[in-house]
C-alpha cells in the first residue's frame, strides 16, 4: 500500500508530501499521522505541501481533520509552503482551513511550532506570539 513517510525530529513530526494526493493516499496519511502523534506523544506536526499542485475540498478536509485530531492529542499542526495558486483556489472554493496554522517554509514553520509550544508550557494566558498567523 502507498504511504507517505512520516519523520520524527525531536518533539515534532515532519511530513513532506511530494506527490499529488489521491483520496486513498490522503486517508492513509490521516490515519498514520494520528497514530504516530499518539505513539510518539509529539508536540507538533509540520506538513510541507510545497510540491502539491492541487488541493481540492477532500484534501482540504483531510488537512483540517489532521489539525483537529492532533489538537485533541495535544499537538499543533502547521502547514507550510502552500503554492500561491493552491491558496487562491482554496479560498475561491470556500475552504479557508480554519484553525490550521500556516508558515511560508519549513524553517519558519519550525520556529512557529516552537514558539507555540513554549507559550503553552510557560503561560497559557500569555498573548499569542506575533509570528503566529492563524489562517482566516
Amino acid at each position, binding site marked *: 500500500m502507498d504511504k507517505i513517510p512520516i519523520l520524527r525530529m525531536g518533539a515534532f513530526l515532519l511530513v513532506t508530501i511530494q506527490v499529488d494526493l489521491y483520496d486513498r493516499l490522503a486517508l492513509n496519511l490521516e490515519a498514520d499521522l494520528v497514530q504516530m502523534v499518539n505513539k510518539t506523544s509529539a508536540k507538533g506536526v509540520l506538513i510541507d505541501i510545497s510540491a502539491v499542485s492541487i488541493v481540492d475540498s477532500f484534501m482540504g478536509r483531510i488537512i483540517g481533520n489532521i489539525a483537529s485530531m492532533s489538537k485533541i492529542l495535544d499537538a499543533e499542526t502547521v502547514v507550510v509552503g502552500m503554492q*500561491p495558486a493552491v491558496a*487562491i483556489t482554496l479560498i475561491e472554493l470556500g475552504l*479557508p482551513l480554519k484553525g490550521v496554522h*500556516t*508558515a*511560508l*517554509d519549513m524553517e*519558519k514553520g519550525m520556529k512557529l511550532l516552537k514558539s507555540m509550544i513554549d507559550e503553552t508550557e510557560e503561560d497559557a494566558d500569555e498573548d499569542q506570539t*506575533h509570528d503566529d498567523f492563524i489562517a482566516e
Partner: protein
Amino acid sequence: MSQKANQLLKNKKKNILELWMKNQLADEGLREDLISNDELRSQSEELINALVTNLSGENFTNLDADEWSPVIEILGGIAITRARQGFSPRETGNFVFSLKEAILEVLQQEITGDQSNLYTESQKINRLMDSLSVVTFETFIKGREEVILRQTDEITEISTPVIRVWDGILALPIIGTLDSARTQIVMENLLQEIVETGSSIAILDISGVPAVDSLVAQHLIKTVSATRLMGAECIISGIRPEIAQTVVHLGIDLSNIITKASLASALAYSFRVMRLEVKKISTVSKP
C-alpha cells in the same frame, strides 16, 4: 466569370495595376508618411497577381473555396499591418475600393458594344470585391483589437508593482479602480512575490483606490485570506475616512483583517511584529 472576361483581366493585369496605382496616388488620403510609394506598389502588385490567378470559372464568388485562401491571406496581412501602422478604416477601405474602380474601368474599356455582357461581368466583380472588402474590414478591426488588448495587458502589468520595503516586508500600492480582473493580477503578483522573497508581511495600500464597494471589499478579503493560507500576513493600509464610512454603511465586516490608516503606520506595525526598532541616532556634538 466567362472565359473571355477572365482572359481579358489576365491580359490587362498591367493596365489594372497602373490604373489602381494612379487612383491610389491621386487620393487625398494617401498616407505617404506611413507607407512609401514603392511599398504600396509592391503590396498592390502582390494582391493583383494573386487575385487574377484565381479568376477561374466555378468558384469565382465563393470565397470559402480553397483557392481563395492565398488572396485572403495577402489581404489580411495588409489589413493587419495597416491597423498596426495606424491607418484609418477609411484609408484601408479605399485600398480595396480603388482596386474595384480600376477593374471596372478596364472592363468598361474592353467590353464595348455588348451592354448586357458588361453588366453581368461588372456585377460579378462587384460582388467579389465587396466580399473582399468585408474580409479586409474584419481583419483590420481584429488587428486594432489586438493592439488594444496588448496595451491593456501592459497597463495592468505596469500598474501593479510589488515593492520590497524591508527584508521580509512587501508593499503593493494599488492605484485606480479594483475590478475582478485586476484583483486577480494583484493577488497573483503579490502571492508569487511572497514566495520568491520569503516575506512574512505584505502591505496592500489602497490610498489610490477611488471607492470601495462590497465587491472590492470581497476581493480584498480574498487576497488577505489567500496570503494567510500561505503563511504570511496581509495588512490593508491607506483607508481614507470616506472609505471607512462606506465600508461600515455597507455592512462589510473587515474585523478579521488588520487595517491601518496609512502606509507609515502599517510599516510601524510590521516592525513591531518582526520585533524591529527604528531609532534616531543621538548626535554627539564634537568638541
